[in-house]
């Protein structure tokens, strides 16, 4: 097969633009270098579901059954695209979108920055500029005046047909929105934003979105209280259990306050912590108790779940959840919202919410990390680093580090309390995504999980192995510290997929757990490896 061209996206029929094969992929260190394959969709799904991009289906888009249906969908796409390009309809992201569409000079600096492009063996369709160029050509030909003629003269071939639309929808979900491309672009073009705006078009105009992000995500969060499906009653039950656990560990009853009106801080955790990583929530409670902080959790609808999956695919859902979070904080009359170890909640509440919250809803919003840094580095709690004397490396969640710019607080903490801390390379704002960014960690339908383990998570897994290369003792537990629930989920699945616990003794967990593990007041270790 020759080099895939931009115009190939319009190719009629089911033929895939890319056949994924492990022979092309970036090599992993031994013994993780055995060939792995992606399961093809079963025949029944192949006949019913769009898969003509690369044989993967993240979205499960049903194939239209008539030409009329296809034409209707293409028309909806075009209507949505006009809205994306209208300042009034897209006041949230119009400016950076139009800037990015108009400014790219196709120098391809971004391609060498993209972990998916590199891991996949430099597949054309995964280039950060590929989907942007498709969109640009559609706009130039079908939306701009005299576009058909000027496109022809410029040789910008593209046909806006159903295969183009279906492939573009899937292609918007082959980018983790890590924005490493934007970091490298000499002009500040944000190709990840283009991916995200394409997702928005599909969700808001065509009702096409991953069910994990929409039906079970934002819809469930706003109806039931949490994207996990946890109701306020179940939330209270989980918190009671955590208080019981804290008492067992510390020998003291420490209250985890809920709905305490007038507390200084409303702490927002990702509700995934309550189900999968309760020790992170417990660690925060232990630290806040030691610091004597006035704080509370909320049991209100969405008040106990910091997530806002809307930031990955839909502005309407994004705004609804941002407003709900601000209203919960106002109701409790707190001074500020503090965000726990959740990357995209940082992006949403610290950065994007500035475009949405005004007046009294514009309540101060901060990351918990500087507060933890102050506690550790200014001696506010008694810590003994020798309790963390095992190899530790730090994963930088893209939304927390590259996007929000919180780079040093977590490093100062681990440098201070983890004697065997070592950086991954590259790290900080130049980090690589865990491969589960933008919701991939929770998207698990059809054969998409195979893709996120073998392709999008490949670079991070290699970085993790490399970071511990010098550790002599094969049995020594190695800890990947990831201060983000989404990244933790992806790391857990990667370690399990590549059997890294068994083969390399690699474990993972959050940041607050490492702090509590070093607290001198505790008689027993806080970190129990079997849960990591």
């Amino acid at each position, binding site marked *: 097969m020759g080099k895939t061209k931009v115009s190939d996206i319009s190719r009629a029929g089911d033929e895939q633009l890319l056949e994924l094969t492990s022979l092309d992929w970036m090599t992993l260190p031994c013994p993780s270098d055995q060939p792995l394959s992606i399961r093809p969709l079963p025949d029944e799904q192949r006949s019913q579901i769009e898969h003509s991009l690369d044989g993967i289906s993240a979205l499960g888009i049903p194939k239209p059954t008539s030409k009329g249906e296809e034409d209707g969908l293409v028309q909806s796409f075009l209507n949505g695209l006009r809205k994306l390009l209208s300042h009034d309809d897209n006041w949230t992201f119009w400016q950076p979108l139009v800037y990015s569409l108009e400014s790219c000079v196709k120098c391809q600096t971004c391609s060498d920055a993209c972990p998916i492009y590199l891991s996949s063996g430099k597949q054309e369709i995964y280039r950060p500029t590929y989907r942007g160029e498709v969109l640009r050509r559609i706009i130039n030909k079908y939306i701009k005046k005299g576009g058909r003629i000027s496109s022809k003269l410029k040789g910008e071939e593209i046909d806006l047909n159903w295969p183009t639309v279906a492939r573009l929808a899937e292609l918007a979900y082959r980018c983790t929105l890590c924005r490493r491309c934007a970091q490298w672009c000499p002009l500040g073009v944000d190709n990840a934003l283009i991916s995200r705006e394409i997702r928005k078009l599909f969700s808001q105009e065509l009702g096409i979105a991953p069910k*994990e992000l929409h039906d*079970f*995500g934002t819809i*469930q*969060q706003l109806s039931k209280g*949490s*994207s*996990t*499906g*946890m*109701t306020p*009653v*179940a939330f209270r*039950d*989980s918190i009671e*259990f955590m208080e019981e*656990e804290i008492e067992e560990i510390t020998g003291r009853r420490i209250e985890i306050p809920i709905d305490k009106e007038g507390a200084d801080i409303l702490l927002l955790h*990702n*509700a*995934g912590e*309550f*189900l*999968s990583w*309760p020790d992170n929530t417990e660690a925060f409670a232990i630290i806040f108790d030691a610091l004597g902080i006035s704080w509370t959790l909320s049991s209100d609808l969405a008040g106990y*779940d910091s*997530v806002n999956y809307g930031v990955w695919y839909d502005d309407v859902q994004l705004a609804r959840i941002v407003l709900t979070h601000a209203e919960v904080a106002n109701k409790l009359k707190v001074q500020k919202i503090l965000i726990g170890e*959740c990357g995209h909640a940082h992006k949403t509440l610290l950065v994007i919410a500035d475009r949405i919250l005004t007046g009294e809803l514009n309540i101060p919003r901060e990351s918990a990390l500087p507060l933890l840094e102050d506690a550790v580095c200014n001696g506010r709690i008694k810590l003994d680093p020798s309790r963390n004397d095992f190899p530790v490396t730090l994963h930088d969640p893209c939304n927390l580090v590259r996007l929000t710019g919180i780079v040093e607080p977590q490093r100062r903490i681990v440098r201070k309390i983890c004697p065997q801390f070592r950086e991954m390379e590259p790290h900080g704002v130049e980090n690589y995504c865990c491969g589960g960014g933008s919701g991939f*960690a*929770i998207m698990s*339908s*059809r054969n998409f999980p195979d893709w996120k383990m073998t392709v999008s998570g490949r670079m991070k897994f290699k970085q993790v192995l490399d970071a511990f290369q010098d550790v002599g003792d094969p049995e020594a537990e190695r800890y990947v510290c990831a201060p983000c*629930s*989404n990244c933790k*989920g992806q790391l857990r699945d990667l370690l399990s997929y590549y059997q890294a616990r068994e083969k390399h003794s690699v474990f993972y967990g959050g940041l607050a757990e490492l702090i509590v593990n070093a607290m001198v007041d505790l008689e027993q270790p806080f970190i129990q490896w*079997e*849960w990591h």
Partner: protein
Amino acid sequence: MAQMELAGKMYEVDEKGFLQEPEKWNESIAEAYAEMEGVVGLTEEHWKVIRYLRDYYLEFDICPMVRKLTKRTGVSLSRLWELFPQGPANSACKWAGVPKPTGCV
């Protein structure tokens, strides 16, 4: 929605084979799921876990955190993985006829 035959009857299941109508669950369904994963004959230890999951789900409309499951049943995490080949979420919840939690878990 897909259908699956379990213990001689057809049931609605999701893509991963999880029962979509938890109220239609019975013990034969748990045994049928177990057999599909190569476990023939469920022990009292299996039932203790399955019953706890179901009771919790019926009360709270969600499965409990695995830590709570281990503490309340006395079945350790490593033992859970021995009893349920695909682990607490993918096997134990499925056999108990209750859905796994969604979101960042």
